[in-house]
C-alpha cells in the first residue's frame, strides 16, 4: 500500500507545479491554450471564442486554423430578414467525418453565434434561429476530417435584432 503513495504524492506536486506555472504565465498560457482545447472532445464552453468581436478572431479562437470555401456545404438563410431578432439559419453538408458546425454573423457585436459538436452517428445538419444586428455575411463553418470548410451568404436585415 505504502508504495502507491509515492507516485500519487509526486503527481500532486507536479499538478501543483503546473498550476503555478499557468498562473505565472497567465495571459499567454491561457489564451494560447484555448484553440487546442477547442479541437479536442472535451465539453468546455468556448468562452474566449464567443468574446471575440470580429469573425477572423472568433474562428481563430474556436478552431485555431484557416478555413476554405466548400460547395459541399449548403447554407440556408433568407435573402432578406424583416426581423433581425429571429433569422432562421440552417446548414447541411455532404462532407465526411464532420465533428463540428458553427455559425458566424460577421457584423454582430460578437461574431460567433453558435457552435455545435457533432459526435459520430449524428447527422451533419443543424437548423437554428439567430439574431442579426444589421445586414451581414453569415458564415457556416464545418469541421470535417480535421479540416475547416465554410459557406457564406449575405442576409439583408431591415430591422436589427440586437436592440440598443
Amino acid at each position, binding site marked *: 500500500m505504502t508504495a502507491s503513495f509515492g507516485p500519487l504524492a509526486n503527481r500532486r506536486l507536479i499538478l501543483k507545479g503546473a498550476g503555478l506555472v499557468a498562473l505565472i504565465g497567465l495571459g499567454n498560457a491561457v489564451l494560447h491554450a484555448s484553440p487546442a482545447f477547442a479541437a479536442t472532445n472535451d465539453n468546455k464552453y468556448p468562452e474566449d471564442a464567443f468574446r471575440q468581436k470580429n469573425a477572423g478572431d472568433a474562428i481563430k479562437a474556436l478552431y485555431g486554423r484557416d478555413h476554405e470555401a466548400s460547395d459541399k456545404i449548403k447554407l440556408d438563410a433568407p435573402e432578406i430578414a424583416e426581423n433581425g431578432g429571429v433569422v432562421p439559419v440552417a446548414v447541411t453538408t455532404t462532407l465526411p467525418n464532420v465533428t463540428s458546425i458553427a455559425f458566424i454573423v460577421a457584423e*454582430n*457585436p460578437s461574431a*460567433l453565434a453558435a457552435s*455545435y459538436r457533432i459526435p459520430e452517428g*449524428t447527422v451533419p445538419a443543424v437548423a437554428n434561429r439567430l439574431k442579426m444586428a444589421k445586414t451581414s455575411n453569415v458564415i457556416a463553418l464545418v469541421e470535417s476530417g480535421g479540416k475547416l470548410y465554410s459557406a457564406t451568404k449575405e442576409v439583408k436585415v431591415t430591422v436589427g435584432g440586437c436592440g440598443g
Partner: protein
Amino acid sequence: MASSIRVRAILNGDTAEVQTLIQHPMDTGLVKDAKGELIPAHYIQQLTFTHKDKTVFLADWGTAVSKDPYVKFAFKGAAKGDELKVSWVDNKGATDSLTATIQ
C-alpha cells in the same frame, strides 16, 4: 412549474429527428429597458442531448441565439421508446432538464 424545454423526437428508420424549443430570454446585455438601464446578459451557454449515456449533440451558444431558442438536428442508432435527455445551463448557472421519449 412546467419545464422550459419542449422536445419532439421522431424516428425515421434508425434516425431520430429532434426538434427543441426552449423558453429563455437570451438577453444580449446590449439592450436597455424602459428606464434606460441595460438589461444584463442572460443566455443559455450549453445545451446537451444524451441518448444511452452518450452525448449525441452539444450546442455552445452565445448571445446571438434568438429568444426562446429553437434547434433541430438528427442522430442515428435510435429506437422507438428510447429516452433522450435534454439539459441546458445558462451564464447565471441556472439549469433545466427534461427526458423525452423517441416516438
